[in-house]
C-alpha cells in the first residue's frame, strides 16, 4: 500500500458563511494546494451537501486520489458523512482525515487573520497525518440478539413491546415490585383523560402476552461490562423469601428508561413542610383521586373551599433567587409537563367539587402540546383565577388570621393587575413541582453514561442522533433524558427501539477498528504492555518456537481491546499502536504545527 504514490485531496468548507466569514478559505486551500502530494485543493459552500460530497467522489475517480482531507465543522457532525463519500469514491473510509475549523476556529477566534492562519496550520497537520493513514476494516463481532430495558415505566414498556413485536427478545429490569412507573399513579392523564392505571394495564397486558419479553421486577442493576452488541448486565433480584439472586444478563443493546422523579421542595419553600396545607401536585392528585365526589374535599381533616396552585416549583430556577439544594445544581430548565398537569388537576378539582374556588399562580402558561391549550382554556372557563408573578417576587405563603376565610394567606405581586400586591386566602396550596432525573444507578458508572449539567442523561445530538448516547449500543427512552409527557416519552421510546432494532437485526455489529495492533517485527515480548492493560483477555503474550528459538510476542484480541492506548505509551520498542491513531501520526501533526508559523494578515 505504501508503495503507492500518495495523492491527497483537500476540501475546505465555507459552511455557508459560518466558516468563510472568519476564515479566508481560499487562502487555506491555496496553501494546502502547494504542499507536496496534494493533488486537488478546493473550497465549497456546503461540503456536507450532496454536491459537495459528489465533488469528493468525482475527484477520487478523476484524479486517482487516495487520501482525503475535509476541513469543516466538528467531526462529531460530519466525519461519518465524508467517510461515506470517500467509500462511494471507491476508497477505504479510513483514508480520510477531518479538520475542525468551525467549532474550534471560526467560532472562537475574533481575528480573521489569526483564524485563517490557524486553519491553515490545522489543515497542514491533517495533510501530514493523512499520509500515515492506512486502510482499515470494521471489526465484525457477533451481537447478542437481546435488548435489555432498564426501567419498567411507560417508556420502558413501550420500547420493550416494540422490540418484542419486531421479534427481538427483551429483558425488562424494574427496581420496584410492579411495572408502570409514575403513570400508574396519575389518575387520569392529559390530553386524553384516560386513566393512567388503565394505560399501564394495557401495556402490561401486551407485554405479558409476548413470550419474547422477560420481566424482572424487584431487580437492581449492580453493574455492567462489555460493548455494543455484547453487554453483560449484572442484576440483583429480590426473591419472595427476602433473599436475593444475582443474574448476569447478556444484551446486545441497552435501553435506559429509568425515568424521573418529582422535585421535593425544600423545607419552607412556599410553606412546604411548614404548613400541612401545602402539598405537591402528585400528592394532591392522589388526594383528589382518593376522595369520593359526594363528600367534601378534606386535607388533614380540614375542608377545602379555596385552593391555590403555584407553578414552577423546582423548575426555571434562577441563580440568586433560589438556593441550590446540596448535591443538586439549580434546575434552570422548564419541566415541560407541570403547566398542563396543573391546569388539568384544577379542572378535575372543580369538576369533582364544584364549590371549590381555584387560584393559579404562574410565570408563563406553557400548554404547548396538541390539545393542551384547550386544557388551559377549560380551566379558565371553569373559573380558575390566574395571577402572574415575576421570578424575583415569588408568592409568599403565610398563616392567615384565625377568622379569615382560609387557613393560609398568599401574597403576590400580580403582573396582570399593574403589579399590585394581591392577597388570597386559601385552605390548600398545591405546588406544581418540576421533574428531576431518577437515579440511573451503577449502570451509569459502569458504562460511563454522560449526563448534562441538569443531571438528565445526554444524547449525542438533539437532532442528528436524538436517542443515542456517546456509548455505542446504549439508547435513551423517556424522561431519563429530559422532562416530557407520556406521548413524548412513548415516541422517544419507540425511536430508541428502532435504533436497537437496526443494531441487532443482523446478528452482528460492526465495530470501529480503533484497537491496538502489534508490529511483530519490533515486538520483543517484554510484556510491559500487558502490565498496563486493564481489559482481561484483550492483550496476551504468546510464545512460539520459530527456528528452534522460543519467541514471545504480544497478541491483541480485537473484540475485547477498547483502544485506550495504555499499552502504547510503555512499549520500549514502539511495537504497539492503536489503529488509526498511531504515534507516527500524532508526531507528524505536531511537526506540522511547529513548522514555520503561517503568516498572519492583519485584519
Amino acid at each position, binding site marked *: 500500500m505504501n508503495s503507492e504514490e500518495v495523492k491527497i485531496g483537500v476540501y475546505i468548507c465555507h459552511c455557508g458563511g459560518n466558516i468563510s466569514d472568519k476564515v479566508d478559505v481560499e487562502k487555506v486551500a491555496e496553501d494546502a494546494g502547494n504542499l507536496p502530494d496534494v493533488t486537488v485543493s478546493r473550497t465549497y459552500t456546503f461540503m456536507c451537501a450532496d454536491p459537495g460530497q459528489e465533488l469528493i467522489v468525482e475527484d477520487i475517480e478523476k484524479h486517482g486520489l487516495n487520501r482525503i482531507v475535509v476541513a469543516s465543522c466538528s467531526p462529531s457532525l460530519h466525519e461519518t458523512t465524508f467517510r461515506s463519500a470517500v467509500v462511494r469514491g471507491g476508497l477505504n473510509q479510513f483514508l480520510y482525515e477531518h479538520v475542525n475549523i468551525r467549532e474550534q476556529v471560526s467560532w472562537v477566534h475574533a481575528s480573521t487573520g489569526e483564524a485563517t492562519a490557524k486553519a491553515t496550520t490545522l489543515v497542514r497537520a491533517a495533510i501530514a497525518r493523512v499520509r500515515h493513514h492506512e486502510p482499515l476494516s470494521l471489526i465484525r463481532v457477533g451481537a447478542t440478539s437481546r435488548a435489555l430495558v432498564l426501567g419498567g415505566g411507560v417508556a420502558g414498556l413501550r420500547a420493550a413491546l416494540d422490540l418484542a413485536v419486531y421479534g427481538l427478545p427483551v429483558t425488562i429490569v424494574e427496581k420496584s415490585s410492579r411495572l408502570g412507573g409514575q403513570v400508574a399513579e396519575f389518575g387520569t392523564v392529559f390530553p386524553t383523560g384516560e386513566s393512567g392505571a388503565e394505560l399501564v394495564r394495557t401495556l402490561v397486558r401486551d407485554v405479558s402476552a409476548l413470550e419474547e419479553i422477560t420481566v424482572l421486577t424487584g431487580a437492581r442493576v449492580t453493574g455492567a461490562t462489555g460493548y455494543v452488541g455484547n453487554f453483560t448486565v449484572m442484576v440483583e433480584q429480590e426473591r419472595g423469601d427476602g433473599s436475593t439472586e444475582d443474574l448476569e444478563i447478556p444484551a446486545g443493546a441497552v435501553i435506559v428508561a429509568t425515568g424521573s422523579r418529582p422535585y421535593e421542595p425544600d423545607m419552607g419553600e412556599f410553606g412546604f413542610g411548614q404548613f400541612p396545607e401545602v402539598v405537591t401536585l402528585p400528592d394532591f392528585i392522589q388526594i383528589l383521586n382518593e376522595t369520593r365526589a359526594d363528600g367534601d374535599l378534606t386535607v388533614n381533616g380540614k375542608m377545602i373551599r379555596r385552593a391555590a396552585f403555584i407553578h414552577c416549583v423546582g423548575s426555571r430556577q434562577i441563580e440568586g433567587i433560589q438556593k441550590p439544594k446540596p448535591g443538586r445544581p439549580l434546575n434552570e430548565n422548564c419541566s415541560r409537563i407541570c403547566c398542563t398537569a396543573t391546569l388539568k388537576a384544577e379542572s378535575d378539582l372543580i369538576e369533582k367539587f364544584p364549590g371549590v374556588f381555584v387560584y393559579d399562580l404562574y410565570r408563563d402558561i406553557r400548554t404547548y402540546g396538541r390539545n393542551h391549550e384547550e386544557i388551559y382554556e377549560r380551566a379558565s372557563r371553569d373559573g380558575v383565577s390566574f395571577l402572574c408573578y415575576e421570578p424575583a417576587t415569588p408568592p409568599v405563603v403565610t398563616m392567615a388570621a384565625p377568622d379569615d376565610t382560609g387557613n393560609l394567606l398568599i401574597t403576590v405581586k400580580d403582573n396582570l393587575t399593574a403589579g399590585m400586591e394581591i392577597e388570597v386566602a386559601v385552605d390548600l396550596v398545591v405546588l406544581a413541582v418540576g421533574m428531576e432525573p431518577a437515579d440511573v444507578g451503577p449502570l451509569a458508572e459502569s458504562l460511563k453514561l454522560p449526563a448534562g449539567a441538569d443531571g438528565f442523561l445526554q444524547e449525542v445530538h438533539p437532532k442528528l442522533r436524538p436517542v443515542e448516547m456517546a456509548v455505542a449500543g446504549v439508547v435513551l427512552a423517556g424522561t431519563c433524558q429530559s422532562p416530557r409527557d407520556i406521548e413524548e416519552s412513548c415516541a422517544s421510546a419507540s425511536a430508541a427501539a428502532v435504533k436497537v432494532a*437496526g443494531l441487532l437485526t443482523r446478528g452482528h455489529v460492526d465495530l470501529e477498528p480503533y484497537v491496538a495492533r502489534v508490529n511483530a517485527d519490533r515486538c520483543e515480548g517484554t510484556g510491559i504492555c500487558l502490565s498496563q492493560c486493564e481489559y482481561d483477555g484483550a492483550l496476551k503474550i504468546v510464545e512460539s518456537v520459530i527456528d528452534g528459538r522460543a519467541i514471545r510476542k504480544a497478541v491483541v484480541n480485537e473484540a475485547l481491546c477498547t483502544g485506550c492506548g495504555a499499552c502504547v505509551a510503555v512499549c520500549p520498542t514502539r511495537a504497539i499502536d492503536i489503529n488509526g491513531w498511531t504515534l507516527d501520526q500524532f508526531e507528524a501533526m505536531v511537526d506540522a504545527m511547529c513548522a514555520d508559523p503561517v503568516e498572519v494578515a492583519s485584519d
Partner: protein
Amino acid sequence: MNRAASTETVDTLVIGGGIAGLQTALDLADLGLQVAIVEKEPSIGGKMIGLSKVFPTLDCASCITTPKMAATAHHENIRILTLAEVESVTRHDEDFSVRVTLQPRYVDEDLCIGCRLCEYACDADVADEFEGGLSAHRAIYIPFTNAIPQLAILDPMECNLCGQCAVACPTDAVVFDQKPREIEITARSVVVATGFETTPMGAKEEYRGNEIVNVISPLTMERLLAPHGPYGRVLRPADGKVPDSVAFVQCAGSRDRSLGVPYCSRVCCMYAIKQAMLLSGALPFADITIYYMDIRAFGKGYETFFQNASAMGIEFVKGKVARIDEAGDRNVEVRFEHIDELGQVEERTHDLVVLSLGMLPAADLRDRMPISVSSDGFVTVPKPTIEPCRTNEPGIFVAGTAAGPKDIVDAIAEAGAAAMAVSGYLKKREPAGDAVCAVSAGMEIR
C-alpha cells in the same frame, strides 16, 4: 432517482420528504425495508432546509438536514420521487394502492447533470419563493444550493420560450412538452409526513401582513438570516434599509380564536428568540423586541436559551399586539397593552416587524385516504399517549407536524417512533419466514 415504473411495490411509502419523512425513511431502510418517499416539491428537505440555524444549539439547519438528505438519496433501500403528489390511497386487501401524479419538470431527470448551464443561459427572472420572494431565480433553475436531486426545473408560466436553455444544455435534457404522469405504487404500509404550512400572513386582519411590506413572515426572516440568503445580510424589504429596530409579534397565527387557530403552534416562541439572537449578532446595535403572551420555552435547554436571550438585551414585552399600522418612512407601528408595565397602552414604531406565524397542516388529506382528520386538519391519532404515530387505519401511520405542531427535535424523535410502529406492523403481518430478514440479508456492509 425519479425513475418510476408504472407499478412498484414497496414496504413503506412515506408521503413527504421533510425532516420527519426523511428520518422515518432512513430508520426503516436501516431495518432493510424498501421505502419510497413521495415529495411534492422539486427537492426533498422540507421546511427545515430553508431555515438558517436551529434552536437551542444554534447549529446551522443545513448542517443537520443536508447529511440526512444525502443519506436518504444514497440509501440503497430508499427511492425518492420528487414533484410527486399523492392523489389517493386506497386499501387493496392487505396492501395500499397509491395513485401518484408526477408533475413535469420539463427536464429529463436521467439526462440532467445539474451543471446549471441552462440557468446561465436563461433570461427570464422569477421571484424566488425559497428566498421569500426577496430575490429572483431564472425560469429554469436548480431550486436551491443544497437541493436533492440536483436537477434543473423549468417554470412554464415564466418561461418566454426563447429556447436558449435547450441550446445551452450539454445533455439535451430540456423537454418542453413534458406532461404530468400518473403512476400507481403498491405499498404495504404508508407514513403520512406531509408537514405544515405557516398560517397565512393575512390571517389576522388587524396585522395587515399582506399590505405592509416591512411586516414579514418568519420564514422570510430565516432567509434574511441565512448565510446564503437573498441579500447576504439583514435588510428590510421595502427599501433595503438596515433595520435599527426589529420586533417580533408572537401568536400572530396561533392561540387566537378570532383567526380560527385556537391551539399553540409550539415552535414560534423559540424560533422568534432564536431569530432575535441571530439578529443581535448580525445587527449588534439594533433594538430587538419580542411581544408575547407566554414564553413557551419548554424543551431541553430551551429555558436557558430564553434566559440568555433576555440577558443579551433582547426586550421581552408581555402584551399581545392588537393592531399594526404603517408609520412614516415605511416604518411599522404596533399598538399593544404593556401588561407588566402598569397595563398602559403603547404605540411603538419599528423598522421591521416579523409576524410569528403558527402552523397549519400542509396537506388536506380528507377524502384522499381512509384516515380520519381532526377538525383543524391535522391527522387524528386515536391513542396519542401510548401509540403516538398510529392513525385509525391499520397500516397508515403519521410522523412529524402532519399530526400537530412540533419542533424539529420532537418531529425527529417521532419519525423514529413511526418507523418502529411501521416495522412492528409489517412484522405482525408477515407469515413465518419473514421478508424483513430476507431483505436485510441482501444488505452487506462495506
